[in-house]
């Protein structure tokens, strides 16, 4: 049994009389201790998928399908059951670490709150645990950080605090939604390195969400590519990076930053704009931007077909 099992999840909204579809039927299973990289552009539904899993979507979201965590159905579960799971076994960190922290509370108090309310720790126990948690995320001068306010920390330190907070409940799954997109490349490298050591130390399943393949490439064992609310390719990381089968994955591989090699006259990019939830498609959603699109692609939607090395949703997948 998979740790997290999302099945045929669909999410849509009715906004100003229009149907806005953010997730259009996604099935995804994450095993215990597995690291999955989820890649897609803004608006591809990658964040919505997991917000839905945690019951964090806005109230006007309409959902269908099923999300099971350790076999328990989360869709339609009541708030108390959800609260028991999220924040302890299943936890999530977000792109903007500043807005995820309460501005007027010291770091120590915010970390301690989680422990005193969820675990019934005493204040001194909570302090010791908070200190240990900060030390665990390799933050510099953890003692001092406890007494500081969020705005006194750098972006990287804030993200570490959030990770520390997420780890307090001793989760078995961490969803990291663009955890480094707001950070400098140097700090990003540190955070990613930390995730690596974290996984080496304990069996923690991580879903790393990013628009940049290169960010997830190091950590992920499996990479899932989303486009317009659907999975277009899912494969072991090494295979997908070396031999992407969906033209969109191929473009994403090409778009990843390059530091070595000759200077390029032009940078590769995906032409056009990412589709939005309001858009509807007859054929393949990627066809308008696809360099390999054929007439069939505009008429008939390709289904996700599972083969030996992963699944791809394309009429004309690239063969090795």
């Amino acid at each position: 049994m998979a740790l997290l099992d999302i099945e045929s999840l669909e999410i849509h909204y009715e906004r100003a009389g229009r149907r806005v579809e953010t997730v259009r039927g996604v099935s995804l299973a994450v095993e215990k201790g597995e690291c999955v990289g989820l890649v897609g552009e803004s608006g591809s539904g990658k964040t919505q998928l997991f917000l839905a899993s945690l019951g964090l979507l806005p109230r006007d979201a309409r959902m269908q399908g099923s999300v099971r965590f350790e076999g328990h159905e989360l869709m339609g579960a009541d708030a108390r059951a959800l609260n028991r799971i999220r924040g302890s076994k299943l936890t999530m960190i977000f792109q903007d670490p500043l807005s995820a922290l309460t501005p007027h509370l010291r770091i120590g108090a915010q970390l301690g709150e989680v422990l005193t309310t969820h675990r019934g720790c005493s204040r001194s126990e909570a302090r010791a645990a908070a200190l240990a948690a900060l030390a665990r995320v390799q933050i510099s001068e953890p003692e001092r950080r406890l007494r500081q306010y969020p705005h006194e920390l750098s972006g990287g330190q804030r993200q570490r605090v959030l990770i520390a907070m997420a780890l307090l409940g001793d989760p078995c799954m961490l969803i990291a939604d663009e955890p480094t997109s707001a950070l400098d490349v140097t700090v990003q490298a540190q955070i990613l390195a930390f995730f690596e050591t974290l996984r080496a130390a304990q069996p923690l399943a991580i879903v790393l969400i990013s628009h940049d393949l290169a960010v997830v490439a190091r950590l992920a064992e499996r990479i899932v590519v989303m486009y317009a609310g659907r999975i277009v390719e899912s494969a072991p990381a090494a295979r997908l990076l070396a031999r992407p089968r969906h033209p969109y994955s191929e473009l994403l591989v090409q778009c990843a930053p390059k530091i070595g090699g000759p200077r390029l006259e032009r940078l590769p990019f995906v032409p056009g704009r990412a589709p939005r939830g309001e858009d509807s498609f007859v054929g393949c959603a990627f066809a308008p931007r696809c360099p390999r699109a054929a007439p069939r692609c505009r008429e008939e939607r390709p289904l996700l077909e599972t083969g030996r090395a992963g699944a791809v949703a394309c009429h004309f997948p690239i063969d090795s």
Partner: protein
Amino acid sequence: MNGSLLEVRSLAVAYDGIPVLEDVSFEVAVGEAVGLVGESGAGKSTLARALVKLVAARRGALIFRGVDLEQCTGRALRALRRELQIIFQDPFASLDPRMTVGRALLEPLEIFEPRSSRAHRDARIRGALVRVGLGAEMAGRYPRELSGGECQRVAIARALLPHPRLLICDEPVSALDVSIQGQVINLLADLNRREAMALLLISHNIALVRHLCGRIIVLLEGQVLEIAPSERLPGGARHPYTHALVAAVPTLESLSRGLLPATTAGGAGGDARLRRGCVYARRCPHAEDRCRQTRPLLETVGEGHQVACHRWRELSAGGLS
């Protein structure tokens, strides 16, 4: 290149007495593309804003086309501003949410070409939109109806309207998906090559800057550590910090390499008033006592290549790890 367009001499900027930029000097030639790289807190955005006089300099001179901007005020400054434009990181924040794209593009025309006819202005707006690869029908849209990439193109179109000679781009693509960053960067590259418009491209990502710019300036805590020709990178960088910046870029090429030890990369900060010596000494794996005590000055190490490091000779001889 033919002559200097912008010359920054010993520029210093401070906020509330805390130095943000110290003694920054560099040049941009006519039609050149220069990259400015550094972490947040390095003073990149402050430098960009100081160049267009959105923040005041404490010391130093900004010579733009032979005129010192620091001595310029009022009308003369406004006239020079036409030729010195800037685009910002957040494509949504840099457009007035209550103005259509057309209205936003009209503004510089109203200011710089107050006597032009309506038909002429409309044609200029359409032309500007086409120039950045957007359709003329965009003019009627509001920023919130656009994607991030489209907003950034509109911002570029607006900056282009006064025919600038230098366009300063402050993290122009870091808010955009990697998949469309190339669209904007290539657009900037085209403008630079075809129209000889000089670019100052500011980014925290050295990989991005390297392809577009001929020269790269590396900034840390308000000080220039290295100015290097791009073709020397990544291998020919002389400053250990530049190497750390290069190594930190997540790429698909570097998968086989180990990730950086946390000490060499990231985590700018510390009290700027207390520091002596090299600003990188605290994090530098090669730091010695003299690095902590005396500040290294920029010295020329090759054609168009300067570095501020006490140990660059030994390190380049021994090879940087």
